[in-house]
C-alpha cells in the first residue's frame, strides 16, 4: 500500500507540466548546442537569462490575472506606458531614479486596481472573463493611444552617465547572473509564498476556480480581483522598467503583442485559461522555453522566414503533450 502511494506520487510528479517543460527545454537546448556551440557560451546564456528575467515579470503578471479567473490584455501597453512614465520622470522632470520607479509602479498599480473594480462592478451577474476581456482591451487601446499621442512616436532618450544604478538594473550581472533574472527569481519566490502560504493566495484560487462558491463562502471577491489585476499591471511595469534600463530610452512602440506572449507562456507553464489552476514556477519555465527557442534560432542563423513556423510547431508539440498528459492525469 505504501509503495503504491509512492509510485502514484512519482507518476503525479512526472505528469506535472513543469516536468514536461524542463525536459523539452533541456532537449531543445542540447540540440541547439550540438548544432551551434556558441549557443551555450557564457555570453549567450547570460543573454538568455537577461531576457527570461525581463519577460518573466509580465508573464507572472499575466498568471495572476489568469489565476483569478480573469485575463489581462493590457500588458503590452502597460509595458510601453510605464517605460515612458519612468523615462519622462527621470529625463524631463529630473526625479531621482528610485522615486521615478516608485511613481511608475504606483501608476501601474492604480491602472490594475481600476481593472479589478470594473470587473467586480459587472461580475456577477456576468461571467468574470467578459468584463475582464473588455476593460483590459480598452486599456490596451487607450494606453497605447496615449503613449503615441504624448510622444508623437519619438523615443524618450535617457542621458547615459546620469544614472548608473538604473543601467545596472538592466545590464548588470551579480556573480555572472544577470540582474533582471535575479529580480525575477525574487518575484517568483514572493509569488510562491503569496499563492501557497497566504490567505489571499487561497482566495485567488477560489475566485478563479469557482466564483459562486467563493462568494457564498464570504470571500471578498472585489479585494481579490483588485489584488490580481494590480499585480498584473505592476509586474508589466517591472518589465517596462527593465526594458527602459536596457535601452536607455523609452519607445512608445514596444510591447505590442506582449500580452499574448505572456498568456502563451503562462498556459504553457500549466496555468488554466479558465482560472484557478497553475503555479508561478511553471510560468517561468514557459518563458524559458520560448526564449530558448527564439534565441537558438537566431544563434543558428536560421532564415527569419522559418522562425514563426518552427516556433509554432514546437509550441504545438509541447502543448499537445502537456494536454494529453493532463487528460490522463484527470482520468
Amino acid at each position: 500500500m505504501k509503495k503504491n502511494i509512492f509510485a502514484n506520487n512519482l507518476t503525479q510528479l512526472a505528469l506535472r507540466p513543469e516536468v514536461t517543460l524542463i525536459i523539452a527545454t533541456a532537449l531543445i537546448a542540447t540540440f541547439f548546442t550540438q548544432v551551434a556551440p556558441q549557443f551555450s557560451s557564457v555570453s549567450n546564456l547570460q543573454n538568455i537569462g537577461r531576457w527570461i528575467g525581463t519577460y518573466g515579470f509580465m508573464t507572472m503578471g499575466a498568471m495572476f490575472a489568469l489565476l483569478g479567473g480573469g485575463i489581462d490584455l493590457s500588458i503590452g501597453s502597460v509595458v510601453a506606458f510605464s517605460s515612458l512614465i519612468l523615462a519622462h520622470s527621470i529625463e524631463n522632470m529630473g526625479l531621482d531614479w528610485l522615486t521615478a520607479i516608485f511613481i511608475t509602479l504606483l501608476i501601474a498599480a492604480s491602472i490594475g486596481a481600476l481593472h479589478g473594480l470594473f470587473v467586480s462592478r459587472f461580475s456577477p451577474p456576468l461571467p468574470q472573463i467578459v468584463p475582464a476581456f473588455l476593460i483590459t482591451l480598452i486599456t490596451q487601446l487607450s494606453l497605447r493611444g496615449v503613449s503615441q499621442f504624448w510622444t508623437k512616436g519619438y523615443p524618450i532618450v535617457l542621458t547615459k552617465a546620469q544614472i548608473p544604478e538604473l543601467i545596472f538594473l538592466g545590464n548588470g550581472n551579480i556573480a555572472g547572473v544577470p540582474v533582471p533574472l535575479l529580480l525575477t527569481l525574487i518575484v517568483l519566490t514572493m509569488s510562491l509564498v503569496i499563492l501557497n502560504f497566504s490567505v489571499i493566495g487561497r482566495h485567488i484560487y477560489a475566485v478563479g476556480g469557482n466564483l459562486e462558491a467563493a462568494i457564498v463562502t464570504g470571500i471578498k471577491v472585489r479585494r481579490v480581483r483588485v489584488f490580481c489585476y494590480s499585480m498584473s499591471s505592476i509586474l508589466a511595469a517591472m518589465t517596462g522598467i527593465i526594458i527602459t534600463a536596457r535601452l536607455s530610452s523609452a519607445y512608445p512602440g514596444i510591447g505590442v503583442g506582449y500580452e499574448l506572449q505572456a498568456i502563451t507562456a503562462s498556459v504553457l507553464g500549466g496555468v488554466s485559461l479558465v482560472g484557478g489552476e497553475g503555479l508561478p514556477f511553471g510560468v517561468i519555465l514557459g518563458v524559458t522555453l520560448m526564449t530558448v527557442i527564439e534565441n537558438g534560432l537566431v544563434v543558428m542563423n536560421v532564415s527569419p522566414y522559418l522562425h514563426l513556423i518552427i516556433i509554432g510547431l514546437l509550441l504545438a508539440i509541447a502543448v499537445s503533450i502537456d494536454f494529453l498528459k493532463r487528460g490522463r492525469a484527470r482520468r
Partner: protein
Amino acid sequence: MKSRDKGAVRRSLSRREALSTAAKVATGVVVAGVVAGIGGYLAGTSTAPQIVRTEVRTSLVPTTVTRTVGPAVKPMKIGVIGKSVHPYWSVVDKGSAKAGEELKGTGLDVTVTFWVPTKEDVPAQLRTMDNYISEGYAGIAVAPSDPDAIKPAIKRALDAGISVITIDTDAPASDRLAYLGTDNYMAGRAAGEAMLEALKTMGLAKPGGKIAMGTGSITARNSLERMQGFKDVVEPAGYKVLEPVVDNEDAAKALELASATLAANPDLVGAFGVYAYNGPAWARAVEEAGKVGKIAIVEFDATKENIEPIKAGVVYATVAQRQYFMGYYGVKLLALMNMWGRESALRFFIPRYPANRIFDTGVDIVKKANLRDYYDEVVGRGEPVDWTPE
C-alpha cells in the same frame, strides 16, 4: 475666337446665356491654360477656373453670375496616408503641411489631411483610403504597408477620378500615377558603401568577414530592397552577410536579437540596422558586449536615438532619408495634377516621364565628420530636429 465670345457675353444679360458662354470661354481657356500654365503653378493664377473669373469680370456680368460660373477657388482636399506613429512620419507630416501652407499662400483652397495608423495596419489604411474616396478627395498620397493589398483601393480611387501616388513605399504593380520616395535599393547600396568605408577606416576590413543585419520586417518591400542593395555592395567586396534578424518593429526585441547575434558570432565585423531603431539596438548590444571599435555599424534614419551613438563613435554612419520631401512634393504634385490634369503635371514633375514614374528623393550619408553641415541644412528647412551636433 476669344474676342467673339467676349462680344457674346456683353450682348447677353440672361443668366442662362451667360452661363453657356462662360462655359465656352472655359473650354477655350482650359486648353490655353494647360499650355500656358506650365512653370507658374506656385503663383496659382494660371488655373483655368480663375481665368474664367477674370474674363467674366471684365465683361461686367452681374456678380451673381460670376459666382455661378467660376468660384474664386475650388476647394481641394489632399490626403496623405502614412504607415505608423513614428518620428519619421511626423517629418512627412511637416513636409505635407508646409506644402499645403505654400499652396494656400497662393490663393488656393487646399486642405491637407495627414493620417497614420498607430502601428502598421493594412486594413486601417484601406479603410482610410475608402473614406477619402467617398469624401471626394482630389488626391491621395499613400505609403502602403502592403503594396499588393492596396492595389484594388488605388484602382477604386483612380476610377473615382482621384489622383493617387505612392510615397515612401512603392506599389509598382498597382496603377498609381507615380512614386515619390527613397529608392530603397539605391539607399541600401549607399549603406553598403558606407559599411565598406567604415570597415576600412576602422581597420576591420578582411575578406570573409561576417556582417549581420537587423530589421523590423521581412515582408515590407523597403526593408527587403535595402537589404538587397546592401548585400549587392558588400558581398562582391568579399564579405559574408548573415540571415537578417527580425523583431517585428519592437525596439526591445531588436536589442535581444542583436545581443544574441553578437554572442553567436564572435568574429562579426559589421552590423547593419535597417529600421530606425535597429542601429541604436546594435550600438547598445555592441557596448554591452564591450566590442566598441571592433564592429562597424551602419544604420538608417536620423533622429536623436540614431545621432547619439554617432556622436559617441559607436555607430559609423547613418543613411538619412529625405522624407520631408516625400510629403512636401507629394502634396504639390497632387495639387498640380488636380489643376493641370495628370499628364501635364507628371511631365512637369518627373524626369523622363512616362518611361520613368519614380521621383527619387535621395539620401544623405551622415557621419561624425559632416554632422554639423547636415544639422544646419535640416534646421534650415524647418524640419523638426531633436538633436544637436555637439
